[in-house]
């Protein structure tokens, strides 16, 4: 039996980079990458739902959108402002902006994190200060699935859910993370953005076998992968986007890729403050190695 493809109409993209202005020269080099991954929230100013209605709530930051215009590369949108697991109501204006951005740039899919940021419905785009993880409960699953269905209907694009790095565990959750992600895909029709460094963080911090986690995941749901590196923080391993992926993350990619029939894109993400250590040569090495792992192209 053929497995479900959560992004059946989307192209096979290849290997890309999470765009930031520091790597502009690299992004604009022909053939350096196959696509750009973009956090749209960094490319616009959000004046908030309480903005004077005579003016636009969202406005481009021209220096950033100019990069996308010049690059002329396929783009996937990786959002950080939807607050997927938040218990407060969905920000309708934000979803409308997701749809507008998707139409404007032709993104084949959108993605968001399995986390919550928004905590105060009466305080504008107010937040917890960082992305926090919720327990893997039925109640949270229903909330996330409902929000994903709404976003997919509004945007006309598949919504990929990204697994988060969690410093704190809730061991009495209704289900474990793999089951939660499998059930999200089944119930919503969406797919997964599997962040292999987040998985590595959780395996290191909470003492489990990341490869066994892959065995429990329905890998047909994986459409995109994130690669990154991290750093120690208060005795835990944190997803710091601090350079080339460590070897265990490459091992996870080698394990995953042959078993993920719908994997279309591998994105390398790093924070621009680490560019001096990494350099463009370092980015090129990561891209070349990812390209060699598995042809992320139409079989």
């Amino acid at each position, binding site marked *: 039996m053929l497995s479900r493809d959560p992004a059946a109409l989307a192209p096979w993209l290849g290997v890309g980079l999470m765009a930031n202005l520091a790597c502009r020269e690299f992004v604009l080099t022909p053939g350096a990458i196959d696509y750009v991954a973009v956090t749209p929230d960094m490319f616009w100013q959000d004046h908030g739902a309480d903005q004077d209605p005579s003016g636009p709530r969202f406005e481009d930051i021209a220096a950033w959108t100019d990069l996308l215009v010049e690059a002329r590369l396929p783009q996937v949108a990786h959002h950080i402002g939807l607050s997927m697991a938040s218990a*407060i109501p969905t920000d309708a204006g934000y979803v409308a902006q997701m749809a507008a951005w998707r139409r404007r740039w032709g993104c084949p899919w959108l993605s968001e994190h399995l986390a*919550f940021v928004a905590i105060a419905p009466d305080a504008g785009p107010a937040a917890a200060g960082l992305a926090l993880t919720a327990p893997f409960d039925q109640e949270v699953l229903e*909330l996330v699935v409902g929000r994903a269905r709404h976003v997919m209907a509004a945007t006309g694009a598949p919504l990929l859910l990204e697994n988060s790095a969690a*410093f704190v*565990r809730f061991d*009495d959750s209704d289900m474990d993370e793999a089951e939660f992600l499998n059930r999200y895909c089944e119930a919503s029709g969406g797919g997964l953005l599997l962040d292999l460094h987040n998985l590595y963080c959780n395996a290191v911090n909470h003492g489990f076998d990341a490869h066994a986690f892959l065995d429990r995941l329905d890998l047909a749901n994986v459409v995109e992968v994130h690669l990154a590196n991290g750093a120690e923080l208060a005795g835990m391993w*944190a997803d710091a986007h601090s350079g080339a992926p460590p070897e265990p993350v490459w091992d996870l990619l080698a394990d995953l890729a042959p078993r993920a029939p719908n994997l279309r894109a591998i994105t390398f993400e790093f924070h621009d403050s680490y560019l001096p250590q990494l350099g463009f040569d370092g980015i090129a090495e990561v891209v070349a190695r990812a390209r060699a792992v598995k042809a992320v192209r139409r079989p």
Partner: protein
Amino acid sequence: MSLAAFQRAFADLAGSPALCLAVRRNPAALEGYALTERERRRLAEAAGQRGMDAQCSMYRVTRIAALNSIVPLSLAALKPHLRELVDAYWARNPVHELRFVIETQRFLDFLAAEPGLLSAAAGDAAAALLDLARLELAMEEVRLGTPQPGAAPLARLLALSHEVDALLAAAPGGLVALALLPRSPNRALIAAEAGMGPKLYRLPDSGKATAAA
């Protein structure tokens, strides 16, 4: 609304090592939240995990990074005293504002409204420090709002109590250098045209504006 209360309490724990310690000592410290028994038990257990220490550290890094992206020179000058200042600010404003410019404006308003706190941290440099921060904030506002081609130029006018060039020159020297600046009421104009980054102009009491260093 129980899940919402749970998430708010979890976020408050991340933002407050003091609350974590209080919950570790006595889970009754969570009584102010409308939680189910299961949620209360979970949060009490979570507060004791070593990952909660990392989560609290990440909270601080994230909120400071937001301010640092807008007013880096001012934060660098305040560095020896930043911990006390942000602790007081976060205690008053536990909910983070995702719009960094507004978050920074709120922080500066807080400092201006707490002269005793700022003076304890910055001493004689307090007024110059606030000027420097307002200048950095205005520069960033204009940079973010650089107009699209065909749109009207964007500008901000600032009334400062220190001379602009002197402020920027003294900033790398920290609070010691800022404290030595003489007061010199003046105005600065920050403007951006389509396709151009922000430019800073000194405005003398009369005559033509000149570009600042």
